[in-house]
């Protein structure tokens, strides 16, 4: 028999450690296909980056979780997921500068640094998996973006498949170019582009989103992703960054703008994984949708105004920061509702 004030089970966020473990293991299972595709496209260096990133996150959590939270929090698998997500957003290979030849692939060190920052600064000080106010993976990648913008966005092309263009889609969009044509549509869908190691394959992303919408435990969280993608698409249609052709801004160019915005950078990855952090979302599906729309709007705003090649993680952090304001609005609306109901009852009683 449930208590009176208790929310129904599907509305609750991670209530117990078991819930948290189940959530993170599901996330891990959904992320592994992306890692395998990264291995297929970029070879062993993708796996190196992922393994080092995960190891750094786990070690940081092992050491500092014991020190500050006074308990072992590794059991919920969140550190592994955070490390993996940061690795997925990085390039598989960053060539070292000429004077440091001995260290090889630099992406490994950046991944480790981002993971340690995410765990040490964003996750543990706020009390662990169930209480963190910001998505740690987004914060870790935002830190790397702010510190090393020239390194994090130097993508190398895959040796297995030939990319449609030699530049990344985000950079092309920043330059106002349109890379989507009827000929290479399917190649872009299968990820034959230059970009981060785990976020390029659009088809898999769409499949993952559909799977999330079908999973009962993920459905209401996936509404945030849906709202995010719809908002980005609508704003890309209204305010295209693709430069107009000879006939001006035609309908085809506007549709291509939507495609370019969704495909470029790690936007779909961030929408599907980073935005769905349970502790950073409100408790009802329609409010989650609103948060998703807010994050989408912020993403387009930052893409128009920002200086970096990819700004989606900053938009997600800003949307996370808006959560207390959303709670306050919810409370206010609830109180107004109760007040109006009381007033109606009083007037009914007076009439009677």
């Amino acid at each position, binding site marked *: 028999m449930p208590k009176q004030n208790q929310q129904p089970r599907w509305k609750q966020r991670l209530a117990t450690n078991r819930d948290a473990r189940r959530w993170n293991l599901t996330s891990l299972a959904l992320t592994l296909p992306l890692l395998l595709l990264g291995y297929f496209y970029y070879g062993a260096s993708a796996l190196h980056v992922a393994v080092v990133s995960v190891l750094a996150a786990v070690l940081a959590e092992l050491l500092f979780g014991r020190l500050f939270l006074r308990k072992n929090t590794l059991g919920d698998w969140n550190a592994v997921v955070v490390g993996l997500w940061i690795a997925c957003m990085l390039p598989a290979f960053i060539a070292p500068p000429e*004077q440091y030849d001995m260290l090889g692939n630099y992406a490994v*060190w950046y991944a480790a*640094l981002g993971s340690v920052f995410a765990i040490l*600064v964003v996750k543990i*000080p706020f009390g662990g998996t169930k209480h963190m106010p910001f998505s740690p993976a987004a914060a870790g990648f935002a*830190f790397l973006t*702010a*510190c*090393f913008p020239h390194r994090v966005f130097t993508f190398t092309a895959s040796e297995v498949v030939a990319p449609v263009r030699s530049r990344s889609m985000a950079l092309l969009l920043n330059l106002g170019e349109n890379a989507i044509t009827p000929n290479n549509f399917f190649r872009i869908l299968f990820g034959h582009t230059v970009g981060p190691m785990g976020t390029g394959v659009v088809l898999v992303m769409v499949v993952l989103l559909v799977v999330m919408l079908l999973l009962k435990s993920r459905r209401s969280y996936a509404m945030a992703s849906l709202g995010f993608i719809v908002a980005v698409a609508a704003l890309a249609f209204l305010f295209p960054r693709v430069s107009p052709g000879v006939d001006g801004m035609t309908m085809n160019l506007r549709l291509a703008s939507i495609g370019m915005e969704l495909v470029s950078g790690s936007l779909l990855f961030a929408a599907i994984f980073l935005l769905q952090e349970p502790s950073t979302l409100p408790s009802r599906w329609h409010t989650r949708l609103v948060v998703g729309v807010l994050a989408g709007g912020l993403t387009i705003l930052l893409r128009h105004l920002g200086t970096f090649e990819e700004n989606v993680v900053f938009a997600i952090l800003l949307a996370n920061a808006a959560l207390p304001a959303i709670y306050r609005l919810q409370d206010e609306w609830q109180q107004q509702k109760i007040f109006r109901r009381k007033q109606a009852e009083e007037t009914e009683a007076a009439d009677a």
Partner: protein
Amino acid sequence: MPKQTKRVKRESVLRGAWLDNPMLVQAIGLTPAIIATTSLRMALWFSLVTAIHLLICEMVASLWLKKWHSWARTAVYFAIGIIFAFGAGMLFEVWGGVVGQTDVVDLLMLRAILPLMATSSIAAVRCERFAVYNNLRASVRDALVNAVGFTAVMIIMGLLREGLGHGSLFGVELTETMRIRGFWMPFGGFLLLGFLAAALKTILQWTSQRGITTDADEAMEFCPEDRQERLEKIHHLLNAADEYEKSRKPDDEPAPESQQEEAQPEAEPKPVSVLFEPATSNFTREFPRLDDLTIEQLLAEFQGGARDE
């Protein structure tokens, strides 16, 4: 003229700077400090200028501004700040020709951020909280305490931000390793400040738990939050005593009415509810100001009332 009710604590300057640190405990004067700590040399210069400004403001406030309205006093602090920033800026311009070239860059940069110091909250807050209630000597002491605390944090932050973010110290390059530019940027400064504050709080708690500080009570009095907690405890205690009295009364034998009427006007012990209004919720609860009543006085009041009964 406001009453001089605030007690003047006689403890060492270093101890005050540690326990009542203006940046880490009181959280005042943060924004200019974030901008000025990108290099150690600039942090030192800025601390020096802020210290002198604070000293002048507190002296003026304790000497002449006690009878003024608070809004007029704030305007005076800002006016002093503007005059001071202007003078210091001109001084730096003259001095820039004398010292070396690396100094000139820092000094010019400092000139650009000096107007921020003019509206810095540290002088206004310390004057309003302390200097206008105390004499000149205590105010000078308070200015010293806050300047030392401010300078210590500025030096730590300047060291870390210049060393890790820029890979140099006093403008001299240290190593050719990877530089983490985040420390050098404003967000890194704010993060660093937050973690320093957390570290200070942890150390204070740790030392008071292990009994390392000999007089932990004195240390507690400097932390406003702990002070609030203690007040809450006393409040709870007094309420409980009140309730206990109310519950005890019906058990006693009711006195005849004539006696009660005679007894009332004679000796009325001050009821506890006069001192503390009954609290309804955490948000509407108001505590008496410590400026008017210290904890010792409150306890004495309570004990005296109980003894009378």
